[in-house]
């Protein structure tokens, strides 16, 4: 049953996924298992197919839509305790100042949620001050900075510098990503990781996540 759902997710058969989830619920499968073993693994496989150049962004967005619809059915069936237990970490994410693009960022949000992270989505055009504030107040373990333009990616460096200046750099791991961003760039500005695409970003997040020392 769970495998069947995962397969329908990979094939982007929207209505089939919803129908199968409803059947699974009526058969008594736990929402947590459906999320963890069917949805997450389906989305992950899609992500891998993206990395291999088999599917592209429109497919990932559709996968995200299917995931959102499925979660809307499953989440109300879970107790708060179950939800808390399901979280594997806390992530704050946003597109940097001057950048109104949020396509890539939204994909990462979807993938992070499907992987069980608690996600604080700051949206787009997020100022350096806003990023600092959220690190101070919400104490996420991971901060993801997205930039979609060569003209705005310099803000990623600015945020990291500001974290250093405020003595917050060790409190949070910083992950950068976005179309013009490269591994070299991430290294040069002192980021902890570079998410080549949404799938890699989530794998990295899983690797980097650790209790915040702050």
């Amino acid at each position: 049953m769970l495998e069947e759902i995962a397969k329908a997710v990979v094939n982007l058969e929207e209505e089939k996924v919803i129908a199968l989830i409803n059947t699974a619920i009526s058969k008594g499968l736990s929402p947590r298992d459906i999320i963890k073993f069917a949805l997450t693994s389906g989305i992950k496989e899609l992500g891998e197919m993206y990395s291999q150049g088999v599917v592209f962004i429109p497919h990932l967005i559709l996968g995200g839509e299917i995931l959102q619809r499925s979660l809307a059915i499953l989440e109300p069936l879970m107790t708060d305790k179950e939800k808390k237990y399901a979280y594997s970490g806390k992530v704050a994410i946003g597109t940097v100042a001057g950048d109104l693009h949020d396509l890539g960022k939204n994909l990462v949000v979807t993938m992070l949620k499907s992987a069980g992270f608690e996600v604080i989505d700051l949206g787009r055009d997020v100022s350096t001050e806003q990023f600092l504030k959220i690190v101070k107040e919400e104490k996420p373990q991971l901060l993801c900075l997205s930039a979609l333009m060569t003209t705005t990616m310099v803000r990623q460096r600015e945020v990291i510098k500001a974290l250093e200046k405020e003595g917050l750099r060790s409190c949070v791991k910083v992950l950068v990503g976005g179309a013009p961003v490269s591994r070299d760039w991430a290294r040069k500005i002192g980021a902890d990781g570079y998410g080549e695409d949404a799938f890699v970003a989530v794998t990295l997040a899983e690797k980097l996540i650790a209790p915040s020392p702050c």
Partner: protein
Amino acid sequence: MTPYERVYTAIELGYADFTPVVPQITYATCILVGREFEQSGGNPKDLAVSLIGGWKKVGYDGIYSGWEASFNLLAEAMGCKLTKGNDGLPQVNTHPVETEEDISRLILPNPWQDGRLPFHLEVTKLIKDYVKDEVPVFSYVPGPFTLAGLLRGSEKFLLDILRKPQFVKKLIDVATEASVAFALAKIKSGADIIVVADPTASSSIISPEMFKSFSLPAIKKVFKSVVEAGAVPSLHICGNTEPILELMVESGAKILEIDHLVDLRIAKEKVGSRVCLQGNIDPSLELLMGSPKEVYSSALQCIEMAGKQGGFILSSGCEVPLNTPWENLVAMVEASRNYPLRRLESCVRRDC
């Protein structure tokens, strides 16, 4: 030899005296001429002074007449609202198209009257009047695919490709008409080279099949009009374009602007005998943050990879960011001017 001749020789796949150098620089020129970005852009003369001043100071071989993204300007004239981002440049923030009826309600803008289009046509005219036929004037118009995405909202638009392909094609048709009208007005105002910018059509976003069936036919239409009006068609797609290089040539483009993420050597191998390539120094890591020495050596490498026999314009791999030090742009020009002698020197030691 004038910069104009240098560039046009490259477009015809030849090599003149030097590799032409044309960085993709627009609003970042204000810094080159010592103006504050926030205080720039108030009137067409102000823009022209920066764009011409940048060229005079650095001495490159072409001027981009532009400031903010062309697709934003056209999207605004068609009903999108722009908001100023935290960095001071406006970007599209609302999208008028939800339904089929919304598409038929879209008004095709008159570039001589609507939105801020006349303002930017005036900038092109001011530059052309100043440089005449000594320096070629490059100017952007939106790729219809990207413009359609802005009118609809990019996330919904990309979903529509899978769910409602006919709806997408209808929207692209309207966007194509708008792009053609804008291109023709720019040519009339003095643009020599029309660069269609279609970032959303990148292989980082859509599949080559999607590019072929949605983006490419529209670009072809724009280029047909551009050529008929006597200008040179050039194609700019950011990000990874390696899988679609051949299709990009099929568009009728005479120049391909190659992003820094694409291996110039591979691009040259695949399509360099059919089209002039322009690129591709890393705009952030090298031009903005690197030293003149680093830029100089990357520039030589680019020429070595794609410009030995001509058919190449040395450039940035995408738009030059604000606050890029002018010394780094000068290093690009120096690399071009020193290259022939350097090549001769290397031939002293071994026969070539």
